[in-house]
């Protein structure tokens, strides 16, 4: 059932056991899992069916530190959430992303990749993915990795009819939770806002916050402030350890044989470091994306190379005259070190229409990350030499230690951390089952529970975690 207002939903007299806040990939996946298990569930979705400026305005906020996107641009507030404009790149976090890195503090998850692997067949169905392929080492330091360019499933489009027909799932549009109330053990209710006005309080046995990787922290910070710590009793880490995937053009490569690498449907190939290389150089995970360079770019690359390695430049000109593909741009996205100082705070001056303080995002890239970027390109360059596959040129701003450019990709729109998973209550917000520490009936879905970000896009892992949480809750609720 899908209702366009809270009023219409109330008139239907539906009695849910579980209330999910948010209908993005996380919320919708959990709702479908619970619904399939015969558990009545309501999904409160802040936005309407289609994009609206009014709804989007609730997402405005500010950033402090490094240049970042406007917070109302980097996500979408309507049914299906940011799946309405995601690009569809898919990959699950690496095994080593879940394990602690001895050289980086606050890394490691309380679960292993094997804990989400049983859900990958379901994830493939949900995201329309082909078979997942293992990594292929191309040297001791670099592995080819599969990053799937999927059809970018729009969740509302794909699952809208199914949800509309479901008798034990109610999706309530234009209805957001402005705060949760709690007594330090349980959430006792949610304050709702629907169609521009306060809609009163709502209660259910269980609440799952799936409002996105920025909004989860905002809602919980505000709720906790209003209920004097009654919603997140151990809140030291709440809003902290926020992470993105910084993404920049890191240089170019000339390639002896473009066909030496397996490229995907859009002619791109992806590479990451081996664990041994990360350990040896004490760097984070990264992904190098190889994209064929447009023709004018190749010419200036050859001219540049001619100054230092004329015979190689000559060879490259020959390749070009044969109209062979021989050059590529290298984009690098990397894993950020989890830092408590990268955090979501509530603005002290700015509130949305419902009176909830807007986000003030504090975000800075660290020195370790600059080193990861530089060493990553060096590793890739050395591998191309070792395997006689080509040569790499590192962009000047990186070699010269200059500031990050502000006209580049910047980041992936991947909002991770803020309610991270863990066993240490001073450094995490939820446990291995995504349940808020100390609370009996409050769970969190989405990438805000990520402890580390790995190098790859998050939605495949989000969906796998959502399937796992759906299964877990089905057992808890029916016990």
């Amino acid at each position, binding site marked *: 059932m899908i209702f366009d207002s809270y009023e219409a939903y109330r008139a239907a007299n539906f009695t849910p056991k579980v209330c999910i806040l948010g209908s993005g990939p996380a919320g919708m996946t959990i709702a479908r899992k619970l619904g399939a298990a015969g558990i009545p569930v309501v999904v409160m979705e802040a936005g309407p069916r289609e994009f609206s400026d009014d709804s989007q305005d609730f997402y405005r906020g500010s950033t402090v530190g490094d240049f970042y996107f406007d917070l109302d641009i980097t996500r979408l507030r309507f049914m299906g959430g940011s799946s309405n404009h995601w690009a569809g790149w898919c990959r699950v976090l690496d095994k080593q992303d879940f394990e602690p890195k001895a050289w980086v503090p606050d890394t490691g998850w309380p679960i292993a990749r094997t804990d989400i692997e049983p859900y990958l067949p379901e994830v493939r169905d949900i995201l329309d993915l082909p078979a997942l392929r293992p990594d292929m080492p191309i040297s001791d330091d670099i592995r080819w990795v599969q990053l799937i360019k999927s059809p970018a499933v729009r969740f509302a489009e794909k699952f809208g009819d199914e949800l509309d027909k479901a008798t034990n799932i109610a999706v309530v549009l234009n209805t957001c939770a402005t705060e949760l109330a709690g007594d330090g053990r349980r959430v006792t209710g949610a304050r709702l806002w629907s169609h521009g006005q306060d809609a009163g309080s709502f209660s259910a046995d269980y609440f799952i916050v799936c409002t996105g990787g920025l909004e989860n922290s905002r809602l919980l910070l505000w709720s906790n402030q209003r209920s004097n710590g009654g919603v997140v009793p151990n809140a030291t880490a709440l809003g902290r350890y926020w992470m993105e995937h910084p993404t920049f053009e890191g240089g170019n490569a000339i390639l002896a044989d473009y066909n030496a690498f397996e490229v995907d449907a859009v002619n791109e190939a992806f590479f990451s470091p081996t664990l041994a290389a990360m350990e040896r150089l004490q760097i984070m995970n990264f992904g190098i994306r190889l994209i064929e360079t447009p023709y004018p770019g190749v010419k200036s690359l050859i001219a540049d190379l001619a100054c*230092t*390695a004329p015979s190689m430049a000559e060879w490259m000109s020959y390749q070009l005259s044969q109209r062979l593909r021989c050059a590529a741009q290298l984009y690098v996205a990397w894993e950020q070190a989890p830092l408590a100082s990268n955090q979501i705070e509530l603005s002290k001056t700015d509130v949305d229409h419902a009176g909830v303080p807007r986000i003030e995002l504090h975000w800075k890239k660290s020195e370790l990350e600059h080193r990861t970027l530089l060493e990553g390109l060096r590793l890739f360059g050395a591998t191309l030499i070792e395997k006689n596959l080509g040569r790499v040129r590192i962009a000047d701003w990186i070699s010269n230690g200059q500031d990050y450019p502000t006209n580049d990709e910047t980041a992936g729109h991947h909002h991770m951390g803020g309610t991270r998973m863990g066993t240490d209550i001073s450094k995490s917000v939820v446990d291995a089952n995504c349940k808020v520490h100390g609370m009996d009936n409050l769970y969190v879905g989405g990438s805000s529970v990520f402890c580390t970000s790995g190098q790859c896009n998050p939605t495949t892992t989000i969906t796998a975690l959502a399937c796992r949480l759906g299964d877990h809750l089905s057992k808890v609720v029916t016990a």
Partner: protein
Amino acid sequence: MSFIIKKMSRRALVQALIALPALSLFRKLPDADAAGPKPDPNEIVEVGGWILKRSDLA
């Protein structure tokens, strides 16, 4: 310098320029033993942002 050039005939000037590349022949070359081990042609070097093999260099 410009004084010397003015005094030189045009022919002598051209001859001097032609001879320039050969000047290095007269420089004292380090003797082979003292130069230490020859650089490894496979050594990885970074020049102008390029990651190259030493043998790639001109």
